[in-house]
């Protein structure tokens, strides 16, 4: 068993997929995905194709959903991400989305969830006003530090959201053309 730690970002799905495919070609087959961690089992080199899906659903619908993926092997689910792979067949069956409409819908779900989970973060937005400092807080040093962190997190979040909306817009445009 080999464990590797690596960070991939949601808009770089292709990069993560190719990395996992490369591991499989070197005989490391993905057994379990966690947050930034990948557990592999050593075996025969295989030409696999990896695909990820983002779905928010309850347990009841999950079985029906997974029934559609009979040609795929589910590694596991991390949060709302489902990791699938199968042997590469070099044809149109190597993908789990085959039109721009459904690709767009996946990025819509991703953007909505990303926006919703960050609402508590944005409730701290008031902290960016500089003149709150003296009156509102007993520990100005700590407050200064906290404020910096919140600003960085919000910036990162906005960047991620924009990236994802940008990809979504790309697929949306392709539908209309």
């Amino acid at each position: 068993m080999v464990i590797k730690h690596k960070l991939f970002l949601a808009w770089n799905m292709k990069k993560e997929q190719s990395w996992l495919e490369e591991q499989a070609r070197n005989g490391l087959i993905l057994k379990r995905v966690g947050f930034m961690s990948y557990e592999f089992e050593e075996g025969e080199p295989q030409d696999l194709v990896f695909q990820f899906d983002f779905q928010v659903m309850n347990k009841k619908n999950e079985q029906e959903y997974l029934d559609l993926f009979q040609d795929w092997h589910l590694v596991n689910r991390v949060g709302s991400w489902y990791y699938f792979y199968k042997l590469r067949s070099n044809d149109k069956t190597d993908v789990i989305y085959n039109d721009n409409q459904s690709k767009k819908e996946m990025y819509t779900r991703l953007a909505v969830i990303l926006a919703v989970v960050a609402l508590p973060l944005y409730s701290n937005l008031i902290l960016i006003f500089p003149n709150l400092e003296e009156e509102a807080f007993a520990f100005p040093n700590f407050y200064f530090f906290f404020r910096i962190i919140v600003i960085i997190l919000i910036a990162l979040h906005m960047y991620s959201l924009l990236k994802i909306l940008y990809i979504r817009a790309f697929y949306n445009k392709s539908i209309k053309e």
Partner: protein
Amino acid sequence: MDKIIKTLSPLTESTYYVLLTLQQPLHGYGIIKQVEEMTSGRLQLAAGTLYGVLQNLVKYKCIKLFSKEEVGKKKKEYVITETGKQLLKYEVKRLEQMVYDAKQGGAI
């Protein structure tokens, strides 16, 4: 109905074929196989795309769950509704018109 047509038409190829196959009740993976057969392998519905199509069609009441009287849980089956049939009819007409226009224009 007009609103549903306006939202969904033109249908994606996957949506169109899902409606075609659901003239008879079928479960999800059965739809993939049926479409493959119907199109002699030309169209392979991708699992993620199909899931979205089914969700959408249920949302617009173009297909519904098909329940059998039998006891014992089987896989969920879907079947087309009256709304779905009307949508399909509209779409077929539209496609016929498109082919007709191509022929009239001397393109084929």
